[in-house]
């Protein structure tokens, strides 16, 4: 560990509130490495019993869509109502869909 950095890298934290549910993004924190990030996530984001499992991902490892591309990426879907499965008629027997 001869490489001394002034700042710890940033990590994104995902917490699973209970078994069966998905991990949800809940915030970020600074930590020297992944093991410390998991501990710090436990300290910062689960101190009120919010979680049963924690994931951490280095923020720099996340590739995000460009906010400038929002029009091109997402607006065209606005008038494609046929992509919603609301036009199918369900048989009586299927109550819960």
């Amino acid at each position, binding site marked *: 560990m001869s490489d001394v950095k002034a700042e*710890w890298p940033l990590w994104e934290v995902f917490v699973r509130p209970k078994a069966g549910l998905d991990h949800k993004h809940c915030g970020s924190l600074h930590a020297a490495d992944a093991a410390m990030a998991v501990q*710090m996530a436990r300290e910062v984001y689960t101190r009120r019993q919010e979680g049963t499992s924690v994931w951490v991902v280095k923020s720099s490892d996340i590739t995000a869509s460009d906010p400038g591309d929002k029009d091109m990426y997402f607006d065209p879907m606005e008038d494609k109502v046929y992509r919603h499965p609301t036009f199918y008629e369900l048989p009586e027997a299927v109550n819960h869909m």
Partner: protein
Amino acid sequence: MAATAESVRLKLTPPVQYVLRIADTCLIHAQRLSEWCGHGPVLEEDIALTNMALDLIGQARALLTHAGQLEGQGMDEDQLAFLRDERQFFNLTLVELPMRRSSAHAPGGDFADTTLRNFLLATWLKQLWQGLLSSSDAQLAAIAAKALKEVRYHQQHAGDWVVRLGDGTEESASRMAAALERAWPYTAEMFVADAVDGTAAEQGLGPARSALRSAWLDEVGAVLEEAGLKPPADTPFLSTGTKGVHSEHLGFILAEMQSLQRQHPGGQW
């Protein structure tokens, strides 16, 4: 101005003193850790230290309540924490030593002492709680079961720091080595055999401290080795906090910790 509160005087029996030793070690250690609140080296660690202090205060509260019941004069946790005089506190001397925390008024401290002490104590308390799981006193066993989960995390968190700093830069390694030299003589008190412990072990109340030494040395030794540190040689020095004879530092801690209840007896908020 209202009269200040009178000190309480406990009737000491071996079981009461045995429980108070653990309770007071948790309480005073928590008090020292809480000094970091708002002053941690980074925000995340600030929260971690405060969370651990709160765990320890929770353990101390349960034990003080239980000690009050064992003592038999009907004293509660607040009376025991805030109205007892120094000579009736029985914590390990190690926990009352200053944390060498840097501040605007006192630069030059470092984080190594805090994290090393936390690790040495968590490892010791873990052994103790494990032994207390099979206590003949059901309430003590129940407190131990809850505390064990908390202390296992404290040991991991603090132990990771010992390795990080010990196996870190040249400067962090030398500071951690110095902290180890400072703390080590005070660890002898963690394993003293005496009549209080002897009675507790005999009655099945809990383990004698002297029985914890080899497991403690194994676990501490493994982490020190990973950190590139060696256990210092033992010295003849023996601190005496568990007998109620303290360093000059405990009085200052109690003065701060107890001042509110002393000035406003029974005050609540």
